[in-house]
């Protein structure tokens, strides 16, 4: 859950009275843009991306305009621009117009929790406005501080002295930067980055720090961010329908994290627990449809809902339903497997049979009862299956699932479809009585 840009950034900064550049949103009228240019001499036109997207400047995605005509041309260029970083692409949804802030000094500031220091940590330099990694270490202050007392003025003063910051910027920063801890700590953030903060001359020539760009990440497990009243759509940017439906299950105990790896995949592998998820996703590669961590010991209802949603979206294209994990410590295997079996039976009841091979590798409490329940259902649905205990290596079971998948692709699927009468898809559940 990340937020970038000044459109919402300026609103958040105002909660703690931190000065910001003047910003207009995509809906700004020509008169408003013109007035903004008049007040500030020029404006920056920046595309609005949902979620965390960085390095826009480097990609030439920031426009600058000194007149309305250029501003509108830049608006047209950037409104729906696509920004590609590595494998992922993001599409802009509008632009902002930000009043230019004249300044001699640009400051970089960020707050995050450092795993090196094991404490909240401030990163600060007076040589901001560029990528922080490119600066020599001695010009960057990285200072951990005490969470219970927070970011205090003296921490900032010491840091600025250490890196030899110009003296005229020290006092304004010491006065203003501690406010950002309030925003960071009290509203459920995990990172906050302002780059640049431009030091604008104010009344009497005294410098005022003005935030000109904004990035933050929120903690999904912290309800404090909801105090900000941000619209939900900001965080729903690139979730598919499937992911959104699954995400709703987060209200149950434990987590429900899911990611579509390959929407053309043929192995459906819902996994429980982070370890199994990492291992399986890595080993399956492009065969996997989803990568998921539904948390340890899911209750029956959650498990059944998870399975129901997974089946609804992916079962028709799946060759293999692959349920894999180590020897669980506390997860009740019977509850999990029974829930999956019930969801599978219901799916077949509603949608008719689909060719599917079921491969399982698992250990844990009530293992045999769970395997028994699932076996009975698969027998009733006439589906082929092979279950391995926890004494078979997980990675070997993954290889086996892939071998079955290859066989299904090479004619096995047709063979099975014929046996199931899956051509007659409108048919009733094979579990209907005599």
């Amino acid at each position, binding site marked *: 859950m990340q937020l970038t840009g000044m459109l919402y950034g300026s609103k958040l900064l105002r909660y703690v009275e931190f000065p910001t550049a003047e910003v207009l949103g995509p809906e700004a009228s020509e008169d408003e843009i013109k007035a903004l240019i008049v007040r500030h001499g020029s404006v920056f036109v920046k595309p609005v991306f949902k979620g965390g997207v960085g390095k826009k400047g480097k990609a030439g995605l920031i426009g600058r305009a000194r007149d309305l005509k250029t501003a509108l041309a830049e608006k047209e260029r950037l409104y729906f621009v696509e920004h590609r970083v590595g494998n992922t692409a993001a599409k802009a949804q509008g632009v902002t117009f930000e009043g230019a802030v004249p300044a001699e000094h640009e400051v970089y500031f960020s707050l995050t929790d450092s795993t090196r220091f*094991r404490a*909240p940590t401030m990163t600060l330099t007076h040589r901001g406005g560029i990528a922080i990694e490119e600066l020599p270490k001695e010009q960057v202050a990285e200072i951990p501080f005490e969470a219970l007392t927070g970011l205090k003025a003296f921490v900032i003063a010491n840091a600025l002295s250490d890196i030899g910051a110009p003296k005229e910027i020290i006092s304004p920063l010491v006065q203003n930067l501690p406010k950002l801890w309030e925003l960071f700590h009290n509203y459920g953030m995990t990172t906050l980055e302002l780059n640049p903060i431009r030091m604008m001359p104010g009344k009497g020539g005294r410098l005022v720090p003005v935030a000109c760009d904004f990035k933050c990440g929120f903690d999904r497990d912290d309800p404090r961010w909801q105090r900000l009243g941000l619209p939900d759509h900001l965080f729903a940017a690139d979730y598919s329908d499937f992911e959104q439906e699954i995400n709703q299950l987060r209200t149950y105990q434990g987590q429900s994290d899911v990611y579509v790896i390959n929407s053309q995949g043929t192995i459906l592998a819902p996994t429980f627990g982070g*370890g199994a998820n990492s291992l399986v996703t890595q*080993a399956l590669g492009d065969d996997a449809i989803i990568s998921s961590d539904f948390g340890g010991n899911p209750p029956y209802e959650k498990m059944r809902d998870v399975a129901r949603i997974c089946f609804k979206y992916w079962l028709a294209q799946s060759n293999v339903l692959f349920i894999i994990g*180590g020897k669980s410590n506390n997860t009740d295997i019977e509850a999990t497997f029974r829930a999956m079996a019930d969801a599978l039976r219901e799916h077949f009841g509603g949608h008719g049979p689909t060719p599917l091979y079921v491969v399982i590798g698992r250990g844990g409490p009530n293992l045999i009862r769970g395997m028994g329940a699932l*076996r009975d259902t698969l027998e009733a649905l006439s589906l082929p299956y092979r279950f*391995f205990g926890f004494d078979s290596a997980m990675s*070997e079971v993954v290889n086996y699932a892939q071998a079955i998948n290859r066989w299904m692709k090479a004619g096995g699927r047709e063979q099975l479809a014929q046996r199931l009468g899956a051509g007659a898809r409108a048919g009733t559940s094979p579990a209907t*009585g005599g």
Partner: protein
Amino acid sequence: MYTKGVGPFKYFVGISSLAEVATRDDRVCVLNILGGESSEVTPVSHAYSGGNVVFGTSPGRRGQVLESQLGPIPVFNSVREGLDAGHRFNTGVVYLPPSGVRDGVAELARVNPELRKIVIITEKISVHDAREIRAIAQMRGIDVFGANCLGVADSWNHVRIGGPLGGDAPEESLFKGSVAIYSNSGNFTNTIANYLAAAGWGTTTLVSSGKDVYIHFAAPEFVYALSNDRRSKAAVMYSEPGGYYERDLVFTKPIVACVVGRWKAKLTRAVGHAGALAGSGDDAESKERWFMESFGVNALFTPENPACSAKGAVVTNIAHIPLALTKVMALNGINLDFDPRGSLDLKPWFANDQGLDLPAEIKLPVVEAIAPYNAQIAQLQQQIGRVFPRQSMKDCSGVSIMDAHTQITRQHGISILECARQPLESNLCQALMREHNGANDNAMINVVIGAEVNLHGDPMLAAADASRAAGNAPNAVLSAAASILGPGRIDAARRAADTLIDLFAHSGLLDARDESFDLRKIVVSDAARARFMADSRDPKAQAMVKAVQEREAKSLFLNFVRGLGDHVSRDAVLAAIATTIAWGPLMRKRISRETARNLPWFLRLYATLIGASVSGARHEAGRFCGIPNQEILGSWSATDLAYLTLMGERANPERLFAFQVLVGLLISNGVGSISAQGAKGAVSADGPQSPERVQINKAMVGFLTHSGYSHGGAGYEGITFLVEQFRDTGLADPANPKHGLDLAVMARRFAVEYGNEKAALREAGGERRAIPGLNHPVFRDKPVNRDPREVFLQELFRERGEYNAFHEYYHALARALFEEGVTRNVFCVNIDAVIGALLLKMLWPRYRSGAFSEHDLEVAAFTIFLYGRMMGCAAEIDDHINRGRNMDTRTAASQCKFVS
């Protein structure tokens, strides 16, 4: 601000050796000890560790205990109370919900100066709270394990603290040896220990670190403590992307590092463990490199390319850990801890390729599982039908669930709207068999109902008549009959059903209609044979067999019992028919054996309740309601019969359908309804843990006594209201759209009157009674409100081209009330209105002709409700017998209130 601890750290660390992580001397206090997870895990940890938990807390539950093998663990409201009671501990374990963890840590740190360690099991703690937890612990000099972890364990000390490492049998995974384990994944902590044991390596200390942003006891601390632990000769470390915990580690002992999660670098947002957001140089590849540089190797270790040094190896697959470890240890001259225990090769425990032609390399044969799982599998193969785990079933149901938004109840996953499309005979079975009937099953049950509905000469009928004569409502009348159908009258049929199940369960018979099955395979003892025989020729048995033949139904079991001799008893025939119906679901393990053996009882109860709802005069030796017995047996359906009891005639298809829909809709309103509660209470009181002792007829009486004029009479309220509106209109046929009445005008007139009256009453401080059938608290927040059940039914009848003036009137009324300003939106016509309208449409001709009084209308409405609900309650009774515990529906005294 931090307390100075051990080692070179710039923050507090108190553990100098892994031997100190989980010791025999540690004494533990568990916060939220009675929570769902702790109450399962803590007793096992306590027993494994020789009784290390001194007490637990759970606010408001002081005085309770958590039972364990080593005796009860006391519970206090707070930590201070436990300390005041004289308990001492040095380790806190936190099972609190996420929002409470920080305060729990503060409590532990503040009130117990002897505290040295905290293990936090809870997941989803906010980073905000983790920051503050870190600061509190640093200030006080406390080591924290977790959060979001499964705790710590020590195979040498035989101790585990916190979470469930090793599951419910820690000794199966925690073998004493020479390898320490550190893992970001809780499950893998255990799985790696199992893999090591298979290769001949045991363990010293196991640390499940968790994978939050803040890992308090992390890799640097682990490695430092490893160096100082004389027992540990090496370690396995499992890491995932995110965080710099593994960077710049200083190793003094061999390490096998497993780094998994390269794929996460492709993602732009966190998946899995909260801290595993990859990118910025702490992704899986970076971590692999950090380890490889430390070990002086230039490749990942795989079986094909076993790259390793005496310092260690890096793998990306946990299955390669044992081999890598053995190789690294060999370079250090260290031998296995013990002989390998098993192998990690593929060993299928269950398989069925369903006759598919799989190539040999993937057609792996089933192998016998390791103990104790092999014995469990053998037992499973013998098991007949489904076995449900027992639990408290108070307000719980494995049968029905009502959707809070649509108010539509599902029974065995099938919506009652769908049930309403099914004939009564199919619904009677679905309640117990969990699936609707095919044609054969319908024929079978119709024979049973037809055979048992006529109660001529039976004391059940006399009892029902006496109850009726005393002015009782139909529920009390039917209770009198049901009370008499006790176990003594059904045991012979249940025994016969039991015998059939024993004889055929392992015979390979899957379909009871399969009359080609070779019966010579079935060996019957004399004692078994006797269970199917009567002393002399039993005419009822003969008639039932003949009826089955007339209906061209198939039953292997019927053929079987007939083959045993001439004098087959009626109980044997009943058992054979019931077992034919139950066989498919039983073999597919959809139902329990208990359900199958009780089916004859349920079927007779169904028939008895239908029969007893008409007076004794209509039960004659050869006829029921004027229809010859043989005709009923040979051709009538249960739906026909139920209709006959109420209307005294055979229905035309339209009326029969309306009747079927009505009964179907009334099957269930979920487990919270009073009738279901009555039925379940009756089962609970008999003690379902001794299922053979539960009196099913009494449980049906429980349902009947828990229905009444309020619960069961709602349809009648609707009828009364409609009768008031239509009594003087001269309406002849409500099914005819050309009835000549202007329903809109009628509705408006009523709405105006109702509005005036309501206003006047409000002035006087009173309240006008609501109109029965209009509005439902759940469906009233839109401009026009519809109950989805009502919408479904309106569509259903519209499709069939059937009109109902009463139903239309209700819609007109809802609109008129809004238009006249009486209601602020268009109220919803609810399901009670539909039931009233359907019923009255059916009864209207008789009411108009004077054949039915208003009292008769009420009796009919109530009886239809009972017909529907007897199925839903039969399902709840059966479910409670299968799953419930003795006396589980009682309410704890602390939950009860006194009012004065």
